[in-house]
């Protein structure tokens, strides 16, 4: 059934090639974003568009499936964390034709990306840059650790990074 969902989305030109989430210490998502780079869209629209997480109902369906996929990979990430002391864990799991890459910070914040294209360098640099943005948010003494990141500036920056790397 998952393949059906993806094919419906593809037909409507609304595939979401990249889903990115940041998961906190209690497996709680603190940030989520989907980057659909619209190469299939017509030229009237912006050539690169990143959609905010709340959109049409088809996107929401695909959206929750992607989140489900990423969350199901959390167990694998938990195991991999103790096997390596680098933050970038590369591809930790697969789902159909998609890959799930992960990056876990010193403070065990899990940055997860669901992607179709395997581009290790770009993904590694993307994670590193998002981590730097995350640390900047952390430095705000009023930011409660492990809570959702609601800063729109953070969101804009992350989307710019997605455009830069993907």
């Amino acid at each position, binding site marked *: 059934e998952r393949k059906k969902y993806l094919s419906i989305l593809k037909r409507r030109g609304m595939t979401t090639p990249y889903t990115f989430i940041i998961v906190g210490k209690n497996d709680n998502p603190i940030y989520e974003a989907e980057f659909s780079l619209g190469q299939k869209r017509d030229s009237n629209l912006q050539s690169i568009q990143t959609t905010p997480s709340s959109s049409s109902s088809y996107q929401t369906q695909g959206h929750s499936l992607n989140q489900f996929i990423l969350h199901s990979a959390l167990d694998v990430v938990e195991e991999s964390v103790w096997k390596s*002391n*680098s933050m970038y864990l590369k591809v930790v799991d697969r789902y159909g034709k998609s890959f799930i890459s992960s990056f876990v910070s*010193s*403070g*065990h*914040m899990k940055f997860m990306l669901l992607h179709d294209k395997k581009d290790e360098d770009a993904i590694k640099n993307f994670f590193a840059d998002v981590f730097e943005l995350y*640390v900047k948010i952390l430095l705000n003494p009023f930011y409660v*650790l492990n809570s959702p990141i609601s800063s729109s500036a953070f969101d804009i920056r992350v989307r710019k990074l997605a455009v830069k790397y993907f």
Partner: protein
Amino acid sequence: NKLPFLVHCVLTMNKNVNIVDRPLTKGAKNEVSLSAFSYLFSEIVQYSQSRINSVPDWERRLSDLGYSIGARILELYSLREKNLKRETKLISLLSFIHSTVWKLLFGKQADSLEKITEEEDEYMIGDQSILVNKFISVPKDFGALNCAAFVAGIVEGIVDGAEFPARVTAHFTPADGSQRTTILIKFKPEVIERDKRLTS
């Protein structure tokens, strides 16, 4: 004479520089004057004093303040110093705290890192003259108050964040006449078990 200063303030207030746009690594060379910090710290200690009923509560408050700092230090210093590496072993985490963290906070490494031989889950970081206590003298009626509980809180924030939960406290230990401060770290049993498994 004050007018240009006020004008400058008003002009810069409109430049709303968001926290994510500010550079992170520039702050690495920033140092704060000891007197400024000591003044702030003494105010923090006195502020806490008016809100507690017992000395352990007082230390607890200072520790809680340090905790949120420690959690942030862990991520920030990893970004600045360790080039995207994460600690997975107990001893390397402790040496990270003993050297890197102490150096970045206080300007020099801690004096000692010891393991208590009788207990398998207790470690101590010793500092001959811990910076935060430099201008603090504790009168006798406050008992065993050690304001380095603040630093113990920082360490607790770091080890908790790195998934090595522990109880961290600060104590005075007499040594060669003067009082030495020891940060005692008692790890939870599951941490020791996991570490044994990983290092064997």
